[in-house]
């Protein structure tokens, strides 16, 4: 296992180093699909330059990173490339660990005798599971989206690293500080922090006092570490300007720079009267699925994390391909669901076609002037529909597998003919 992993790391580092040194690096750093106003490297450099001039980076509308990023890059700005590559390797190694740990806690192998006999082919053998961490690392490191995001030096890589660390610690069973860290670096995971941690591996029994004791403890420590980090951010610049600049910016979407998400054109064409209403609707939509998903998937926490990550990446206000790469990296973990997936071909074709069309239609709109914004918007819509299809397809396959595990794989109707399974 070590040798293929080392080979993989070497290949990934080589590709990134080659791209960093080439002239493509500047081109990629300007692509709107790869960077957004929230995580562009150009804006981090601008924020540091403003700090050097003696002006607060948050006094203008260019810099929207949390003050922790200023702390980090004040010293590391010359080593930016190495920092990003290291964070990538960190993410991949963390992602390696998670499935491994997750499978160690697999209960299926122990409870194999609970299932009907014909389900044995649904259960994965340890041999298959041996290669999954490597596949996960490969999916992440060699994903073109990840490579583009790393070469553009987008801080999305750092966000992904913290989220991956959070996932690892959650699976291990201890995950307090990473919650607050990921909140501070990346606004949206706040949604699933609360609901995940104490549902995870903790039997939820409302009547038991130890559950409430644990919740109280957890909430107290969470709020305490949140408070510490916010105060640290305050003491960097001595103002609370960063709160409206970072969190207010994510929530109120004033910057309508085109990206691969749904927000920009919607709010560019929104009637002023309804702007606040639709802003609230779209932001609630991101957090809306947390509770239902946690209730439905309370016994499958890893899949819950995957679903939550995917929903946030699709519906957030400034998505980039780096966010997509993180949840795509989880797909090899569910490779056993392949037989139940219904739209694989369609989804992969649409995703590939849209990824190819994004730069073409951008060029036609912005540089050639022969297309207009509707072309790029249409591809955005298609890309998001494909992502939604992918996520719901995996969810369907997962639920179906669970059904088959309890009711048997080859189902028969009352009269003995082959049954069809529908959602009712």
């Amino acid at each position, binding site marked *: 296992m070590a040798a293929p992993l080392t080979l993989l790391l070497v290949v990934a580092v080589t590709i990134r180093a080659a791209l960093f040194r080439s002239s493509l690096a500047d081109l990629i750093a*300007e692509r*709107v699909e790869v960077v957004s106003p929230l995580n562009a490297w150009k804006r981090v*450099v*601008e924020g*540091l*330059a*403003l700090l050097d*001039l003696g*002006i607060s980076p948050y*006094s*203008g*509308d*260019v810099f929207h990173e949390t003050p922790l990023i200023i702390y980090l890059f004040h010293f590391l700005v010359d080593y930016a490339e190495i920092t990003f590559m290291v964070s990538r390797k960190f993410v991949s190694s963390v992602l390696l660990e998670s499935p491994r740990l997750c499978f160690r806690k697999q209960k299926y192998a122990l409870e194999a005798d609970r299932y009907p006999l014909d389900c044995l082919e649904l259960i994965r053998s340890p041999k298959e599971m041996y290669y999954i961490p490597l596949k996960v690392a490969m999916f992440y490191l060699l994903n073109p989206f990840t490579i583009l995001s790393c070469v553009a030096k987008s801080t999305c890589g750092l966000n992904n690293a913290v989220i991956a660390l959070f996932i690892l610690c959650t699976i291990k069973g201890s995950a307090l500080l990473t919650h607050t860290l990921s909140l501070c670096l990346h606004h949206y995971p706040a949604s699933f922090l609360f609901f995940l941690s104490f549902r995870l591996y903790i039997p939820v029994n409302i009547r038991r006092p130890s559950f409430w004791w644990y919740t109280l403890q957890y909430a107290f420590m969470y709020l305490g570490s949140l408070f510490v980090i916010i105060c640290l951010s305050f003491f960097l610049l001595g103002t609370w300007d960063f709160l409206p600049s970072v969190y207010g910016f994510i929530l109120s979407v*004033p*910057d*309508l*720079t*085109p990206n691969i998400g*749904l927000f920009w*054109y*919607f*709010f*560019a*064409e*929104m*009637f*002023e009267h309804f702007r606040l209403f*639709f802003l609230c609707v*779209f932001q609630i*939509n991101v957090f809306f*699925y947390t509770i*239902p*998903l946690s209730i*439905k998937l309370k016994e499958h926490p890893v899949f819950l994390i995957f679903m939550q990550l995917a929903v946030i990446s*699709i*519906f957030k206000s400034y998505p980039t391909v780096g966010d997509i790469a993180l949840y795509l990296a989880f797909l090899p973990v569910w490779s056993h669901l392949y037989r139940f997936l219904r739209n694989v071909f369609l989804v992969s074709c649409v995703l590939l076609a849209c990824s190819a069309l994004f730069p073409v239609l951008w060029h036609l709109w*912005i*540089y050639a*002037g022969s297309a*207009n*914004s*509707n072309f790029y*918007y249409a591809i955005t*819509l298609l890309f*998001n*529909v494909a992502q*939604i*299809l992918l996520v*719901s397809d995996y*969810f369907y396959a997962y*639920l*179906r597998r669970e*059904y088959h595990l309890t009711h048997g794989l080859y189902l028969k*109707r009352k009269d003995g003919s082959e*049954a*069809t*399974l*529908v*959602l*009712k």
Partner: protein
Amino acid sequence: VCVCVCVCVCVCVCVCVWAVCAMCGCGRDDFQEELVIRPLHSGDIYASFQFRTVWDTDFMGGKKVSHYRLFPKSLGQVISKFSVRELHISFTQGYWRTMQWGQPFLPSPPGAELWVWFQDTVTDVDGTWKELTNVLSGIFCASLNFIDSTNTVQPSASFKPLGIGNVTDHRFLRYATLPREIVCTENLTPWKKLLPCGSKAGLAVLMKSEKLFHSSFHSQAVHIRPVCQDWQCKSTSWELRQTLNVVFDLHSSGQGKREWSLFKMFSRTLTEACPLASSSKIYIDVTDNPQGEQFELSPATPLLSQAVVLGDRRTYSVYDLTQQATFGSMRSLNMLLRWKSSDGECDMMRPLLHGERYVAGYGLQTGEIHTLMYNHHPYRAFPVLLLDTVPWYLRLYIHTLTVTSKGKDNKPSYIHYQPSKDRVRPHLLEMLVQLPPNSVTEVTVQFERALLKWTEYTPDPNHGFYVGSSVVSALVPSVVAMDTNSTQERPLFSSFFPSKEESSYFVRIYTEPLLVNLPTPDFSMPYNVICLTCTVVAVGYGSLYNLLTRTFQVEEPSPGLAKRLANIIRKMRGVPPL
């Protein structure tokens, strides 16, 4: 007894008049008008009108000023209501070509420009500024109501007060420019109404709009400032200057013939001076024509005057309109300048400071603003102050700012940068740059173009968005000693910018405004976009809702349509179904 009574009555009347005068606070007021005509080397002709009213009164004092004579009441009320210390407003059509025409007497940028110093008694400067712009918009029939916080800045070093006073807190200064503003007859008419004689007598009869707006450059301005009454400066009086600069083109107004007269330029001749004016003069620049070898000036005038203006000693032929003899037997004055031959022209003195600006780059995503400043002095270097106001939708990246002179990096000694806030305020960049002698200094900064909301575009969005001119202010070294004595009687055109020292004179240069295109959304699509995006969100919601709320069940197949109908009939009959 009768004599005594008469004397008493007279004394009483005099006392009463004096008391009334003292009570209403009417001080001495004085009105001067002048016209300067300067032939330019390209064959065009430059005419500059200046009308100056000086009034010894105190607008800021407790008593309300109510008796207006020469000073226009609308402006007086503006000064007292908004506690204005200095007001400078200009409306310009066209761009001043410094390299072909030399330096103007009073520079102005294309469009409308307004800068105001408020008194330090004002508590809410922004609110007062907003009211002031709206009132001025009404007075001048211009759309100055478009001045709001998104194009107003507070320069920290440029635009120091031009009148007396030692308030230097820049909190009380506001500067705004509207590069898109168009100047037309509707702006000229209220401007002419502010003059004491209106457009009925004096030099103002020449201002007819059909000729004035058929020109290469037209600029009208109003400048209000407090000045010293005498050299001891124990008391101040208010000065109002109205200036109108116009450049007539050789080919479009002059029909290609190099021969200019008052009638040809303005389609009017002068018949009398303004009776309310204490001095009414016309100056013709004859420095290049000492012996009359270049052009012939008729009617001839014996009066000659010399003045040092813009670092050059110029000679002027003077026509004094207050003398009846100037108008001759025809009772009308129509000066004629006829050029003798087109060869043998001497070189115009090269302006020492010159600026240019342009946008580089391609596409609608990014761009670069280049500002070039030329120093044509052969051996002296001098510092200049560059002021740049860029609207918020062109996001400047200050870490890409480079200043190079002669190929080498030239670090500015003072940078004041205020980043923009979306939809609230623009970028403000002020720099003090040392220009090396005989060189070009290039300032470049990169920007990114923003996509605006569809309601924020103008009705013609593909025309582009204007970026106001950069302002370059400098004290340029002068070869000729400037006149620093401010009390001497000097022509108006040489006394606008006060000279503090003899070896340099103040120059303000405005660069070209920029026209920048922004990416536009499709304006016909708001309803469609809302529907389509909500559809995609609904697709996501629908799929997840189905998967979250429904469970898998084995499906009983439903029979075909015929069988179903048969079953319904059988149920009605009470017979078991098929």
